[in-house]
């Protein structure tokens, strides 16, 4: 629990950083010249890196998972608490090193979170590409190790420490999501670690894994024969599972929240589990869709297009199940419910722009434009964030014994929901019109014509960020003066709501729960209340 709280605070500190990062890149647009082009690219790089790794990968898994997984399966703690702490501290160290990149000579790197060599492999390719890029690489490598240790814990705990009666198919979907995310991580982060090691070797030991013969700044490099495409293959083989690592925990949280707050079982627990499994399996087959025009064989591009189209199907099925969960429900619009609903809407919005990019022919005009930026921010960034925030509002009472303020919560939701759409939908239009990514200023005529749209986005960003302050205020105020929370304020059925608020150090006070029911027994016909706890032996429903 301690680890969970610390990780959540780390995650929040990082999201605060995210807000700052958000403002500065955007601020270049109307206030031209305030931020130098290389600084802009540095911000783009570090924003992406910190958000994808240290927020979206850390917060849902390390933050909530470490806290809620053991308690939801009836265990007193994770399988290897010491390794877990080690995982946290290594991740923390990685973060320190990453932020340290800002403070070394030359500053932080400017090669984007994707770090394509030779730009990222040659120390003289730009400002920040010397020591800064080394810090970046080491920070990521440390993060990989931390993530692997964390994943180890999740899998072992889920497989070995479930309480009696807690079969795999009775686990809350959050637990399934963390379990599958850990599997993805275990298989993917090893590849990223390998890629980072090779990159650091190219940068510092003079090897040529990724760098072919050529010049930089007019000086012939000492490298020859390497392949930049190799980095892209390795990176995206990790990178695509990574986006599912970012979104799966939120999918689990949202499935639970939708069920709790419509007082209905999830629509087809098994389908959701199988869909998530399918996504996990397919996610290792689609990485080439990031590389359609990279110079890779056009035939393999076609293959990747097919697998990418295939992976939209389980995602669509999941969306269908979520909407069907709400159908004929008795929906309570609490703050966590709102964020879960927002997730579904955002997932749809971000998802429908995918099939455009999945077709190699259409990717030609859209690649590396703001269309892509809009797509992934909606479906990975914001949707995931909504899952995290929904989970936060949901578990806050259990973690801290106080309720969060509902009015402020709803206000926060609307600022974020409307704001996110105002920021990221216009990006699709920019992309259509041909505005490339990572351009710090518009030099070309047709780009200058699009500046009003950019200004709109910036203003929307300012407002949305301001809205996040509401969340912080709510957090601080609720911790200090919030209404005291009962043990089960949401009338939910899963195991964490059976124990004291906040839970004792070993979650259940020396006792072991015995599970009789599935996790989503709401509105069971004939039951005295509209929810049946998982530990309630009274109504044993068959699966």
């Amino acid at each position, binding site marked *: 629990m301690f680890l969970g709280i610390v990780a959540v605070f780390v995650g929040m500190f990082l999201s605060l950083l995210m807000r700052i990062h958000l403002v500065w890149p955007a601020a270049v647009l109307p206030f031209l010249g305030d931020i130098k082009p290389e600084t802009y690219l540095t911000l783009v790089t570090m924003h992406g890196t910190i958000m994808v790794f240290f927020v979206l990968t850390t917060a849902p898994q390390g933050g909530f998972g470490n806290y809620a997984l053991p308690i939801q399966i009836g265990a007193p703690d994770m399988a290897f608490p010491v390794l877990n702490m080690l995982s946290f501290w290594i991740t923390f160290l990685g973060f320190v090193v990453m932020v340290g990149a800002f403070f070394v000579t030359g500053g932080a790197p400017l090669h984007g979170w994707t770090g394509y060599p*030779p730009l990222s492999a040659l120390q003289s390719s730009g400002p920040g590409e010397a020591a800064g890029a080394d810090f970046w690489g080491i920070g990521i490598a440390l993060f990989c190790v931390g993530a692997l240790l964390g994943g180890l814990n999740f899998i072992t705990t889920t497989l070995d420490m479930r309480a009696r009666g807690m079969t795999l198919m009775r686990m809350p979907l959050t637990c399934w999501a963390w379990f599958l995310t850990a599997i993805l991580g275990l298989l993917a982060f090893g590849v990223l670690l390998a890629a980072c090691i090779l990159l650091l070797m190219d940068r510092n030991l003079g090897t040529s894994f990724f760098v072919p013969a050529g010049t930089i700044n007019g000086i012939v490099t000492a490298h020859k024969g390497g392949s930049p495409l190799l980095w892209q293959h390795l990176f995206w083989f990790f990178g695509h599972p990574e986006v599912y690592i970012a979104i799966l925990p939120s999918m689990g949280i949202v499935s639970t929240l939708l069920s709790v707050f419509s007082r209905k079982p999830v629509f087809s627990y098994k389908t959701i589990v199988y869909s998530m499994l399918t996504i996990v399996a397919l996610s290792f087959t689609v990485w080439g869709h990031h590389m359609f025009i990279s110079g890779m064989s056009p035939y393999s591009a076609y293959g990747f297009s097919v697998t990418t189209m295939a992976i939209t199907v389980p995602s669509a099925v999941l969306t269908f199940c979520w909407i069907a969960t709400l159908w004929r429900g008795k929906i309570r619009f609490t703050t966590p419910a709102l964020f879960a609903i927002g997730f579904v809407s955002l997932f749809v919005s971000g998802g429908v722009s995918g099939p455009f990019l999945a077709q190699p022919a259409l990717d030609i005009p859209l690649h590396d434009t703001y269309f892509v930026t809009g797509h992934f921010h909606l479906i990975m960034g914001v949707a995931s964030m909504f899952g995290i925030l929904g989970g936060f509002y949901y578990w806050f009472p259990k973690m801290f014994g106080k309720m969060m303020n509902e009015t402020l919560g709803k206000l926060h939701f609307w600022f974020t929901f409307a704001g996110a759409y105002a920021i990221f939908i216009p990006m699709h239009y920019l992309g259509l019109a041909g505005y490339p990514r990572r351009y710090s200023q518009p030099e070309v005529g047709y780009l200058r014509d699009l500046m009003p749209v950019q200004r709109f986005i910036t203003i929307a960003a300012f407002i949305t960020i301001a809205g996040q302050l509401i969340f912080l205020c709510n957090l601080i105020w609720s911790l200090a003066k919030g209404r005291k929370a009962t043990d089960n304020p949401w009338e939910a059925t899963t195991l964490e709501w059976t124990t004291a608020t906040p839970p004792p150090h070993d979650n259940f006070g020396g006792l072991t729960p015995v599970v009789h029911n599935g996790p989503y027994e709401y509105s069971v016909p004939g039951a005295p209340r509209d929810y049946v706890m998982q530990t309630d032996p009274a109504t044993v429903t068959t699966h």
Partner: protein
Amino acid sequence: MALVLLLFLCLLTFSSLYFFVAKVWWFQAGASSVAASLDHQFVNTGIAMGIAFLVAQLALGFILFKYRDREGKARAAYHRGESRPEVLFIVLAACLFMALDIGVDLLGGHLWAAERFRPAQAGSTLVEVNAMQFAWYFRYPGPDGRFGATKPELEDASAGGESAIGIDARDPASKDDFVSGVMYVPVDREVDAILRAHDVIHSFGVPAMRVKQDAMPGLAIHTHFTPTKLGDFDVVCSQLCGLGHYKMHGIVRVVTQDEFDKWQSAREADKQ
């Protein structure tokens, strides 16, 4: 709250779709032979996805409104989604979505194959597109039709032109090569562009031509297109290449065959 959500989702759906349908911000006017079919495929996909978007968001909105918790409302319906008709319904939804995907693929699948699975036609205008931090240099092979050798050691950007890309004067084939800062091409004739990057990854993007291809150091990548309109068209670097990425702008100048021949002869004469 439910009503507000429904209204918001309606507003979101219709306003965002409006900007697409009305083409308020749209692709640049197409200037190559593939532009029309590519744009058409985009619209097809847009219709399919637009329908999915509309249906999903509105279904969400209406369900939220209809099934909101009210005073005295009866319990929710206990649907676990695992009965036979419910599972069938899920399968049906999946199949419907798959059909959308497949339909869209069938309509547009040939586009990629048509352009990328074949080399440039014989008789194409041959241009070598050289990308380096942060400028484009376009090399023409001259009357012998062959590009001479280049050496990284000979590159000297300050001298511009042929020196910038390091042409090796000792190679006889390079005697008649000439470099231009603007990519002149004749209209209605296929262009065979050979992309070479000298330092980091760049990308040759010409939005009006619906052309984009990464230039990868260590590789010489061919891409081809057929310009169909006269005029100047922007080349924008489309792969992050360093601090000057946003400044890496080039021009494709499409002229008539006569003008192109005149220009080419003039440049070749300079090289004599």
